[in-house]
């Protein structure tokens, strides 16, 4: 099994024998590239790899694009080179990303063209309209109208495409969407104006049609930008967690490969502190495994040859040799994935605010337009006049506020959350989280930090803690790290003692003259077999051993966040797969009265579904693999950045940091965004109430229609941007 980067332009130099190049392109997600200096180092490191031709990093996207000669270099060389320079990199499936940016550029080009055309046509029309009835030469007015037509026709044909395509799609499916009235208004206004220009009448609306397109396209583009950024962030996250693995070849050679390329039967080397890349069976080595991502249990599990080991778990002890039994798609993850998919079906039925408004709005717009036309025909007006008024109604009612204000509000809210370390992953997540009336937490890793903490650190004498920490600093075991963390809090910097030996699964020891210093399990320190699992003993020579106990601790602000949520009227619940006693303690610590313990993933879904049937809208906060289906099933969901990748994939929001406060923050900003969207609907509605009757009565000239429409668009956008503090783009 090998990993081949797909050969790019293979055939290009095939004939000229001296230039047979096998050029490939590759996009890598770079995890920790934060500044211009990092960007430069990343590019330098990549260019230093033999065979690399170009390397260009994008700081905004946290990605690196490379073209290289596949005969000389490979994906793995690049990843290794970047690793050496201190950057974590992982390959990204570039096809989807390309589609996203292509769509973004497609819209931006049309925004530019429509903007250019709108400005020029407006310039010409203002001259014509202000000269009307005055001393303007009719021949000149006619020339200006023809000029407008000349600019407008190609613009409408080009910039209107996104709307026409979508409207046609909807009509084919016998549905009405917002793009149907938009397309109708634009096409009718343009066609009508062209006719009027030919017969030399003054009722020409090119300005209105084109500026309408311009504002709508701006809204579309903002909406698309938000989705693309959310998608690309999520993609980076997933690729990086997939990571790379060390493969042992049949001849014993070791090679770094991308985790997704592993197949059953491959032999893997899992180094100390590395995540296992695939499900497998241990062939050699003895160690301890942190399975918290899978089971939610923080206490490490012993691992010996023959034991099964799961993807996503962390090797804490000695290096392990693992035979892969299930690759990328066939792991334990797949089972969870199926549950998740089923749960997501329910969420797919969610209809966004703008869509719901459109469902009422679109038929109303068509109805009013038709009524105006028929009314004027019946009143004895010519068909041109009747159609003119009907178009004015269509333009006036055009849903600029809906199409522009909602995306503007959302992008402002998302960029504000982003600056606070909260990533909006689902485009409609903001709307859904704002509707929640109940918050459900998972225990391990969500309400708690998910890492064991040293208990009663205060009662341990300084000297003992310092020597224990000196030993512990040499190990990556979570308990050892907890000791070091506690010592650093109390005594400052901890330096590892020298001459430490680690016996995997048992403990650490150090000889100092005749004395031996030990840190580890009870038996390691010469005691009878210890009682509970979550303890470590320290013993200096033949002195009495000292016991350290560990437990996972609730996040420092969990109590405050729960109390704040309660004050805001949310009902709070705690769902956990852990045992009753533990869950009860944590629930009490955090001040949660309603809790359920010993739940399997399917039980969590059932519980959430029962709440949904009661009409509750639940925000689920969880991190474990076992939470992923529940995250997908809940009305809205949020996950810490330390969560299992599949949970992050399922969640609508991902937050960073040790605190729980981002949950509050996300809810607050989402609710504010919702309020603003509703405000904007109100502005749009009021404007329609005033203008539609005027337009139906035939009082609104096309110029006024266009100006009023633009003003309302700018007004709602400005209102939306208040949320961001500074412009979001």
């Amino acid at each position: 099994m090998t990993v081949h980067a797909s050969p790019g332009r293979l055939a290009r130099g095939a004939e000229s024998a001296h230039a047979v190049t096998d050029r490939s392109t590759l996009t890598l997600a770079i995890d920790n590239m934060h500044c211009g200096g990092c960007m430069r180092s990343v590019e330098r490191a990549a260019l230093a790899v033999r065979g690399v031709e170009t390397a260009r990093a994008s700081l905004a996207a946290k990605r690196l694009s490379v073209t290289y000669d596949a005969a000389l270099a490979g994906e793995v060389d690049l990843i290794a080179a970047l690793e050496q320079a201190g950057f974590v990199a992982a390959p990204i499936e570039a096809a989807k990303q390309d589609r996203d940016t292509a769509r973004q550029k497609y819209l931006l080009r049309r925004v530019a063209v429509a903007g250019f055309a709108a400005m020029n046509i407006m310039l010409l029309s203002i001259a014509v309209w202000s000269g009307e009835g005055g001393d303007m030469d009719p021949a000149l007015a006619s020339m200006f109208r023809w000029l407008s037509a000349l600019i407008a026709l190609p613009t409408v044909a080009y910039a209107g495409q996104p709307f026409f395509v979508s409207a046609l799609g909807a009509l084919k499916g016998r549905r009405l969407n917002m793009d149907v009235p938009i397309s109708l208004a634009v096409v009718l206004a343009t066609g009508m104006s062209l006719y009027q220009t030919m017969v030399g009448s003054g009722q020409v609306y090119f300005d209105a049609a084109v500026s309408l397109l311009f504002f709508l396209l701006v809204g579309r583009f903002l909406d698309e930008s938000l989705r693309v950024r959310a998608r690309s962030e999520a993609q980076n996250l997933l690729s990086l967690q997939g990571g790379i693995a060390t493969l042992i070849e049949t001849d014993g050679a070791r090679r770094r490969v991308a985790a997704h390329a592993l197949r059953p039967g491959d032999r893997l080397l899992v180094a100390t502190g590395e995540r296992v890349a695939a499900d497998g069976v241990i062939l050699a080595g003895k160690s301890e495994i942190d399975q918290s991502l899978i089971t939610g249990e923080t206490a490490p599990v012993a691992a010996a040859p023959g034991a099964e080991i799961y993807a996503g778990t962390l090797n804490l002890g000695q290096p392990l040799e693992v035979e892969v039994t299930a690759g990328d798609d066939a792991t334990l993850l797949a089972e969870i994935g199926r549950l998740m998919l089923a749960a997501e079906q329910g969420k797919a039925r969610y209809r966004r605010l703008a869509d719901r408004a459109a469902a009422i709005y679109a038929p109303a717009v068509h109805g009013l337009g038709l009524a105006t036309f028929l009314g004027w025909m019946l009143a004895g007006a010519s068909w041109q006049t009747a159609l003119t008024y009907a178009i004015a109604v269509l333009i006036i009612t055009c849903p600029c506020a809906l199409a522009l204000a909602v995306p503007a509000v959302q992008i402002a809210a998302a960029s504000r959350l982003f600056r606070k370390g909260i990533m909006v992953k689902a485009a409609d997540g903001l709307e859904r989280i704002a509707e929640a009336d109940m918050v459900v937490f998972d225990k391990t890793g969500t309400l708690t930090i998910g890492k064991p903490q040293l208990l009663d650190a205060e009662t341990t004498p300084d000297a003992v803690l310092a020597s224990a920490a000196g030993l512990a600093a040499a190990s990556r075991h979570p308990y050892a790290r907890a000791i070091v963390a506690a010592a650093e809090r109390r005594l400052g910097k901890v330096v590892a003692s020298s001459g430490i030996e680690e016996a995997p699964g048992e403990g650490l020891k150090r000889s100092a003259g005749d004395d031996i210093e030990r840190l580890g399990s009870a038996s390691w320190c010469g005691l009878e077999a210890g009682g509970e699992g979550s303890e470590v003993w320290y013993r200096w020579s033949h002195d009495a051993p000292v016991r350290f106990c560990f437990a996972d601790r609730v996040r420092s602000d969990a109590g405050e966040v729960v109390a704040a949520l309660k004050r805001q009227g949310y009902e709070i619940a705690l769902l956990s797969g852990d045992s009753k006693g533990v869950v009860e303690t944590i629930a009490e610590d955090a001040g949660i009265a309603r809790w359920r313990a010993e739940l399997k993933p399917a039980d969590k879904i059932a519980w959430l579904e029962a709440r949904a049937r009661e009409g509750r809208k639940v925000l689920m906060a969880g991190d474990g693999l076992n939470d992923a289906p529940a995250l997908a099933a809940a009305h809205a969901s949020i996950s810490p950045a330390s969560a299992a990748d599949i949970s992050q994939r399922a969640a609508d929001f991902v937050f960073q940091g040790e605190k729980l406060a981002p949950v509050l923050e996300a809810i607050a900003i989402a609710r504010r965004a919702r309020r603003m969207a509703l405000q904007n609907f109100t502005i749009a509605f009021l404007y329609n109430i005033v203008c539609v009757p005027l337009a139906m009565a035939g009082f609104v000239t096309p110029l006024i229609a266009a100006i009023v429409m633009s003003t309302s668009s700018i007004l709602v956008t400005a209102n939306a941007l208040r949320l961001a503090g500074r412009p979001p783009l």
Partner: protein
Amino acid sequence: MTALAWLVPAALFLGGLGLAAFLWALRSGQFEDLEGAAYRALEDDPPEEDQGPAPK
């Protein structure tokens, strides 16, 4: 009045030039990495040969 005969086309041409410049910039990837570009301006090294479209 004859002034308009060349003023209007001139205005359109200049506007079109702006549009063309924007479309060119978009095509050549000038908007791909707005954050990184700020740092690249401060870079002392001579620019790379490849200043065209960002490789995909």
